[in-house]
């Protein structure tokens, strides 16, 4: 019979009853397998010694600390939670869309009064408790989705190019452990029209126990059109339950106003005091021209700056470390590389990308 695999030999050391009788009997009489078993045993012993970390955990102390941490989280300021798109795990197959729609969500949620064109991306970091209490856009008026999110897989790079009009990525060198040919999917353009309502805003501010200042002339009833996409994404999933690598490119989010200047709208939003102060302070720091897309992150440590071919980029790492992403803008496009890889591996992919027309 064939020799059992190395994995079977290894399991024989830990859980012999989990190994088939035939395999056990073979190994007992096979010099080759016995030699393999001895090697496995030696390596296992090295690993056991290296990973030894025995001590008694302080369960009561740990629970006391956790209880305090839960209690210490700030109470909600607003009755509605803003459902953010963000890096999280377990990750679904549309992770690439999530990365790019993070920008769309951000534009819709906080830049809702800008005349906006994405030229750069800047992270806004705050405790999770603050970010999930950001008001929903519908607290300020009415949203009409004019082009819904619609994603679909396509046969190959040519079909993806044809569906989106975007260039397809060519990866110079795949990271270790990423194999096979990519699959492609596209997301059609999404758009929505938002109509500002001074009355609805006043109600929302009143629920937070405040009195809103009067809206600037012309703001009530103003319409804003938000547009993003299409998106083209290539994913490598071979041998993994979630994509190991996703490379995507999208037409950057843009917002159009029915006439209210960006600075007027931004200053009014900030005067409502409905945003957590640390978030508001970071948004105040953005330029008055409406070209910086905020990219929200839940922890201060979860983003850091980098560069991709001289272009400023933001590296995000998910809270549990299972996923990371790099996002940057390139001449009107938002580009992202993400996956279950280390940030340095993703940056290496990003820096080696070519976009084939």
């Amino acid at each position, binding site marked *: 019979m064939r020799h059992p695999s190395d994995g079977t030999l290894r399991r024989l050391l830990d859980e012999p009853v989990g190994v088939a009788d035939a395999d056990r009997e073979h190994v007992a009489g096979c010099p080759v397998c016995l030699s393999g078993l001895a090697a496995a045993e030696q390596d296992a012993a090295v690993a056991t010694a*290296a990973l030894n970390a025995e001590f008694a955990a302080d369960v009561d102390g740990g629970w006391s600390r*956790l209880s305090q941490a839960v209690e210490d989280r700030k109470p*909600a300021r607003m009755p509605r939670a803003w459902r953010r798109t963000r890096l999280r795990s377990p990750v679904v197959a549309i992770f690439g869309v999530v990365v790019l729609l993070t920008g769309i969500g951000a534009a819709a949620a906080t830049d809702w009064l800008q005349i906006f064109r994405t030229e750069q991306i800047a992270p806004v970091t705050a405790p999770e408790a603050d970010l999930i209490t950001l008001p929903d856009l519908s607290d300020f008026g009415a949203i009409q989705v004019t082009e819904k999110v619609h994603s679909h897989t396509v046969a190959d790079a040519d079909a993806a190019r044809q569906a989106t009009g975007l260039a397809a990525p060519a990866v110079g060198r795949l990271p270790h452990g990423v194999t096979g040919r990519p699959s492609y999917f596209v997301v059609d353009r999404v758009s929505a029209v938002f109509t500002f309502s001074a009355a609805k805003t006043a109600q929302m501010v009143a629920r937070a126990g405040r009195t809103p200042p009067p809206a600037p002339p012309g703001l009530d009833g103003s319409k804003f059109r938000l547009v993003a996409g299409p998106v083209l994404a290539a994913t490598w999933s071979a041998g993994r339950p979630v994509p190991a690598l996703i490379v995507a490119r999208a037409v950057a989010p843009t917002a159009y106003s029915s006439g209210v200047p960006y600075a007027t709208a931004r200053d009014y939003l900030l005067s409502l005091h409905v945003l957590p102060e640390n978030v508001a302070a970071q948004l105040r720091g953005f330029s008055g021209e409406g070209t910086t897309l905020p990219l929200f992150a839940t922890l201060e440590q979860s983003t850091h700056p980098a560069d991709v071919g001289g272009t400023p980029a933001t590296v995000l790492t998910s809270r549990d470390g299972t996923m990371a992403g790099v996002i940057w803008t390139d001449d009107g496009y938002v580009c992202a590389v993400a996956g279950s890889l280390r940030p340095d591996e993703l940056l290496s992919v990003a820096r080696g990308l070519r976009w084939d027309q």
Partner: protein
Amino acid sequence: MVSGPPGRKPVRADLEQIFRSSYPRVVAVAARVLGSRDEAEDVAQEVFLTFGRSAVPAGEAMGWLSVAAAHTALNHLRSGRRRAVREEAADDGEAVSPDVADAVVTRDERRRVRAALARLPRRQAVVLVLRHSGLSYAEVAAALDLSPGSVGTTVRRAESALREELNRHAPSE
């Protein structure tokens, strides 16, 4: 039970029960990666805070928490963002050594193990740490959506790679 503030996503009602039964395992998983009790407990807090507001079924909690602890701890290693804290903790070590020479050796060994784990492919490192934290092959397989057969293969490869990494960076005699 921990009650969350009004208007927030509620903290799950079974958090304390699951915490008390799982905390030693979660700390142990992180400690195998980090070699530091203090840091392992920090990781465990981070993991349980996330878990507390999750909808992970109770029956899958142990696996979920173990995987999250392994990934979070490996991420701490690889980011290097808390290196200074970690090495200070190693200096003050919870495992008090009988003399200074032993303490130095222990610290250097920890550093080598951490560096070796950081160089392993993530999947191998996670499987290795979970297995050496006492999860059975079936538990590792269920937590990572693998077949039990491939757990053995991955453990074997990981142990071989770990030994090679440790040998490659072994201190010269």
